[in-house]
């Protein structure tokens, strides 16, 4: 194999990357067991193909596609927060009911107390951060394992939710933008503006980084790969926008329904925010360091305890955002909001997406990819394909799919351990 080397900063010789070497490296990592999001993406494709061909007229409809975003929003938000916690090798079992409590706080302030929408939303988010601070302090300062702390909180939050709502009560939230968040769609103009804007900004950031590094004589990714990335994102976003801006109302005489669901830019916004925090700030670097080797981080002068507390604050904050999305989708809050399979779906989304349960490895995008897999399973489960089967069969089916996803991850890890 011929490789060209080039000198980088200070004259260290490194292998000059080319498009071919990039692909070879990626393939090498995959064969070595570092699969990242690959199983999730492949799984998504397989699921869509199998169930799409079985019920193509309903599955491949624009209405169903839009529905996926709304279905995924709540779980994806919770999963994004969990990624920070999982990066430290900790777990938060209380995120589901934490979301429920925050949603209930918002609903009660909106209805019974008559507060405005921004105030109620802010109160829900602050509630989440307070809960996260308490959890984080118990884990980092008192030293109780996070599994136990959050298991206790799981039970306690369930109780808080029941108490807030009174026995079995169901509070509907009034119409307004909070209710639109996970229900309505953007106008067609805004849909296109946002999609094209996102592609342009992504392209600008990529090209600026390329030029900045090249100007300093540092190794850059080959231009081909950069263009491929930009083209890939453009294809994905523009195709999705084109589908979503189709008319999907059943009877257009009553109301027109088209445009990108508002949930999509909300998910995208948080994805960009947290990806930036993890990848481009000192704080994010320190989160990875503590997750990779807490002792090394401590010796490097990183305040390990404060990092540990902060990830629980972010986790519960995102759980609160998830709670808002869940309440917005249902239009109401009840004692089971955030309960049932929400938490496990969120942890599942993060892990299926490629984040390690053992800490140190993971990206925010994993929550989105995993969330999409979970949403497709949920949509299938909700009767598109399995409507003729009993709920017993449906639960078993969902279980098997999750097991397959987790199995791929475990086999990959064993392979990567063997190749060390």
């Amino acid at each position, binding site marked *: 194999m011929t490789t060209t*080397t080039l000198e*980088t*900063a*200070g*004259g*260290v*010789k*490194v*292998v000059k*990357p080319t498009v071919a070497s990039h692909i070879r490296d990626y393939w090498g990592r995959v064969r070595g067991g570092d699969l990242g999001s690959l199983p999730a993406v492949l799984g998504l494709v397989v699921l869509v193909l199998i169930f799409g061909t079985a019920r193509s007229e309903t599955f491949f409809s624009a209405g169903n596609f839009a529905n996926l975003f709304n279905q995924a929003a709540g779980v994806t938000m919770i999963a994004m927060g969990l990624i920070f916690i999982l990066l430290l090798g900790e777990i938060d079992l209380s995120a589901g009911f934490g979301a429920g409590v925050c949603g209930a706080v918002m609903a009660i302030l909106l209805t019974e107390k008559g507060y405005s929408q921004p105030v109620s939303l802010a109160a829900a988010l602050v509630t989440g951060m307070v809960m996260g601070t308490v959890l984080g302090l118990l884990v980092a300062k008192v030293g109780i394992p996070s599994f136990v702390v959050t298991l206790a909180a799981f039970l306690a939050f369930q109780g808080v939710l029941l108490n807030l709502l009174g026995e079995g009560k169901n509070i509907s939230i009034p119409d307004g933008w909070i209710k639109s968040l996970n229900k309505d769609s953007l106008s067609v103009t805004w849909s296109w503006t946002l999609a094209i804007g996102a592609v342009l900004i992504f392209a600008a950031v990529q090209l600026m980084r390329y030029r*900045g*590094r090249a100007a*300093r004589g*540092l*190794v850059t990714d080959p231009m081909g790969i950069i263009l491929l990335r930009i083209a890939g994102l453009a294809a994905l976003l523009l195709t999705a926008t084109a589908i979503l801006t189709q008319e999907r109302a059943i009877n257009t005489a009553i109301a027109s329904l088209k445009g990108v669901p508002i949930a999509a830019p909300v998910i995208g916004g948080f994805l960009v925010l947290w990806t930036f925090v993890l990848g*481009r*700030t*000192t704080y994010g*670097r*320190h989160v*990875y*360091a503590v*997750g*990779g*080797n807490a*002792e*090394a*981080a401590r*010796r*490097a*002068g*990183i305040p390990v305890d404060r990092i540990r507390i902060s990830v629980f604050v972010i986790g519960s904050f995102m759980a609160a955002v998830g709670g808002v999305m869940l309440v917005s989708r249902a239009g109401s809050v009840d004692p089971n909001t955030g309960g049932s399979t929400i938490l496990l779906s969120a942890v599942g989304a993060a892990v299926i997406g490629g984040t390690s349960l053992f800490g*140190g*490895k993971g990206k925010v995008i994993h929550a989105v990819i995993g969330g999409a897999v979970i949403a497709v399973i949920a949509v299938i489960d909700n009767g598109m394909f399995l409507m003729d089967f009993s709920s017993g069969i449906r639960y078993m089916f969902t279980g098997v799919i999750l097991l397959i996803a987790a199995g791929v991850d475990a086999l990959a890890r064993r392979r990567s351990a063997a190749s*060390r």
Partner: protein
Amino acid sequence: MAATPLLELSGINKSFGPVQVLHDVELSVYPGEVTALVGDNGAGKSTLVKCISGIYPIDSGTVTFDGKQVSVHSPRDASELGIEVVYQDLALCDNLDIVQNMFLGREKKRGIVLDEPTMEQLAGETLASLSVKTVKSLRQLVASLSGGQRQTVAIAKAVLWNSKVVILDEPTAALGVAQTAQVLELVRRLADNGLGVVLISHNMNDVFAVSDRIAALYLGRMAAQVKASDVTHAQVVELITGGRSGNLGLPPEKPTDFVEITPGAAQ
């Protein structure tokens, strides 16, 4: 060769409860020289290093750095003076790449954003100054490096900060023959760049291969600090195992010395 030591310890005492681990230890580290710190297990090498690096407070004694008397209370004080320790377990994060590890805890920033190009450039220059000429990529994860390369990254991390004294705790303990040679070459180069290097090692071949001076600890006492060219292999082994060799080392033991072995006995 510079006559004044860069780091000078004198009369260092350290006890853990009733057990006195260091007795009146003296040590001088000269710039541009490798000082090997040798001693048997439990002789107090690690304790001495932790006292220098500020992890343990010393009970009594003076530390002179660059001609000024200093007091080191925390690892941070030590690194501000320019003393860096490379521990045996390296303290690297496997899930981060070479540049990220080298700047861990002291990242360069532009506004709130990490300044990756600057860090990569500095890391590259530091590696080059240590004559590390080939890595696949500066952005390679540390997990994918060999033992010798990991040691190199840990050492490069220590010298990145214009440090003046670098203490290496058994840098070759876990390495193969070729990698050991590489790391020893690197140790020599650090000294040639003008740093004061302290090399802790059990391996006499390593010690004689690179060091200018040898300091032998015996049961918490500095048995001798001699030039490597003035002693033989066998003499150093005697210093390590018996505390003395010919007219080098500690005075012959008097019968009263044996009383001390019982913890808590009157001195």
